């Protein structure tokens, strides 16, 4: 194009995602208006519900924790050119790993060691559940999107079986395991702050939030500052180029899926070890799918993912408040927003991009 140069980096990194997000929110507002409610009032309730008081902030960050894990999971697979829809199943099975570790070693191991063992179990179970689709993709060419969807359903059936027939407390009606030993409970934010003499509101926010932030830092170092991470991105950009430079795509596909599954598996740390303190059914509640939205919003970068996870954490917490104070608005409104964010930030990401890039394009420097 004559006269038009490249648009500045911030257009691609910040402006385009923000415009897409704004479009998703505007359409959400239209939905709210369509059911006869005030979008502005809804927005106000949403924001106060998410950040207005101590307890709300605690809940927001508790949801954020899950979304950081699943968002990172989607992103790592994405950098290797894979679309992992199986975060839901991997989180479910990862939670099983965390739960089994707590049931087996609770009260035997001292806490710091117990935490490490639980992390190892959760990551290993999640990684194992993602390893199979990864291997099938790498060695047999089975499309990872379809196999991970199938594995979500298989995970759900498997967990139901295990809870109903194996881990259920005998004589009890609901399929739940016994409560873990109290020494395994992750310290909550309230407890942690009490140690330094600060009193904050009680909420489910716990130590796993810190683990999630550490995981985000680790992913950043791994993907952009290690050799293997570099190879992973080469495979993601072009398998042919990878083969020519002596990188095995198969190995890296399996590795990326395993890491992805391990990250998703750590959701169990927050839900099972941090909040529920026992194994139960359906504790994942769609976090794997939110991870897709989070990764798309966060442009697959850990920093962006943390911000996007916070946004969705706020949406989830604010959304439950919304259902409470505006009863005409069902709590599923949050799910609508989530779907619209995936639509506009993911599938329709090219909708506004050309116009925005043209608008901010710097003219090419004149040749001298």
């Amino acid at each position, binding site marked *: 194009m004559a006269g038009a140069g490249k648009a500045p980096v911030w257009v691609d990194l910040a402006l385009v995602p923000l415009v897409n997000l704004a479009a998703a929110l505007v359409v959400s507002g239209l*939905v709210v208006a369509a*059911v*006869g*409610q005030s979008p502005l009032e809804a927005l106000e309730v949403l924001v106060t519900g998410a950040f207005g008081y101590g307890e709300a902030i605690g809940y927001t960050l508790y949801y954020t924790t899950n979304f950081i894990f699943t968002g990172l999971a989607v992103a790592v697979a994405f950098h290797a050119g894979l*679309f992992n*829809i199986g975060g839901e199943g991997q989180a479910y099975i990862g939670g099983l790993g965390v739960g089994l570790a707590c049931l087996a070693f609770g009260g035997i191991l001292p806490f710091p060691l117990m935490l490490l063992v639980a992390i190892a179990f959760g990551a290993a179970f999640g990684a194992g559940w993602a390893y199979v689709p990864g291997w*099938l993709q790498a060695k*047999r*060419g*089975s*499309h990872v*999107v*379809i*196999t991970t*969807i*199938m*594995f979500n*359903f*298989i995970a759900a*059936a*498997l967990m*139901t*079986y295990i809870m*109903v*027939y194996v881990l259920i407390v005998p004589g009890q009606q609901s399929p739940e395991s016994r409560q873990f030993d109290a020494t395994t409970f992750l310290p909550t934010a309230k407890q942690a702050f009490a140690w330094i003499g600060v009193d904050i509101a009680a909420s489910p926010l716990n130590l796993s939030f810190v683990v999630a932030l550490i995981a985000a830092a680790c992913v950043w170092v791994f993907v952009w500052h290690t050799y293997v991470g570099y190879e992973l991105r080469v495979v993601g950009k072009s398998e042919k180029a990878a083969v020519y430079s002596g990188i095995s795509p198969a190995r890296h596909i399996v590795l990326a899926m395993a890491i992805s599954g391990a990250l998703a598996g750590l959701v169990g740390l927050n839900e099972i070890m941090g909040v529920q303190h026992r194994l139960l059914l359906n504790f994942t509640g769609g976090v794997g*799918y939110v991870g*897709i*939205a989070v990764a*798309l919003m966060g442009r697959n970068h850990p920093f962006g993912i943390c911000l996007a996870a916070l946004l969705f954490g706020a949406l989830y917490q604010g959304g439950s408040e919304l259902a409470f104070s505006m009863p*005409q*608005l*069902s709590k*599923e*409104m*949050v*799910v*609508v*927003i*989530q*779907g*619209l964010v*995936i*639509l506009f930030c*993911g*599938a*329709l*990401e*090219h*909708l506004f991009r050309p116009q925005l890039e043209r608008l901010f394009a710097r003219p090419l420097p004149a040749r001298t």
Partner: protein
Amino acid sequence: MEDAFLMIVTMASATLRVATPLVLAALAGLFAERSGIVDIGLEGKMLGAAFAAAATAAVTGSAWLGLLAAIAASTVLSMIHGFASITHNGNQVVSGMALNIMVAGLCPVLAQAWFRQSGQTPMLGQQARFGPIELPFAAAVAKVPVIGPLYAQVISGHNILVYIAAIAVPLVGFIVYRTSFGLRLRAVGENPEAVDTAGVSVSRLRYQALILAGILCGVAGAYLSTAHNAGFIRDMTAGKGYLALAALIFGKWKPVPTLLACLLFAFADAVQIRLQGVPVPGIGVIPVQLIQALPYILTVFLLAGFVGKSIAPRASGIPYLKER
């Protein structure tokens, strides 16, 4: 002996009822994927259609208007998918996922706003649903041994949408294999460049395929809420869209094998309900969950090439960029 035969008759009938939405949705997926558009959004389209059908039938009292609304809703969703993945070359999997999630949220929101029954639609009366149809002579031949009960209870007595699904299979087969549209459809999913070179619009063909997919998913959704059940409840598709996708892969993207895969999955479902807690001679009690997971496990095995090989249309999932 008499009992065993009766059980077979009931299970065959149940299989047909469960298979109907699967067949319709899988055929919808067939059109989309044969044209080169991956359609993860079958689930969402069906759910949206189920809601539209139930809501319309509840307000107007007419199941047929409900069916029309279902087809309209599902086609609109299909067009959004097309807008994102054909016009804007967006990621087709992401687009399908987005629709599934959005619809899963939107239906209860609208249901709550319109009907105030905690995210459901009101229960539909007999007139607002598709009722069973007695085929000719069903009562007369019912007494004839073997053939009588088979005709009267397995073939006769379903609602019209079951028969539509049955007719849809040969019809789709005819369209895909015996018409020039079908030839182009198959070509555009394998080699869009060639179709483009021949002067046929790739986008147009793909949009047409998605309209057909929308219509079929619409019927499937209407079946769920106004024929099989009496109203909409949240997440009433419960993964049937994904199961249809699995059946489509299992049927290697061909109409008749896809039908057989749907019947197999539906039969597994009928068996699972039968087998709950009943020991099988020589094996013992088979966990229900294993049978529930079986369609998915089989599909994974098939995809892995351990039991035959299922190869997707070559261009599916890849946006077509016209050379300039």
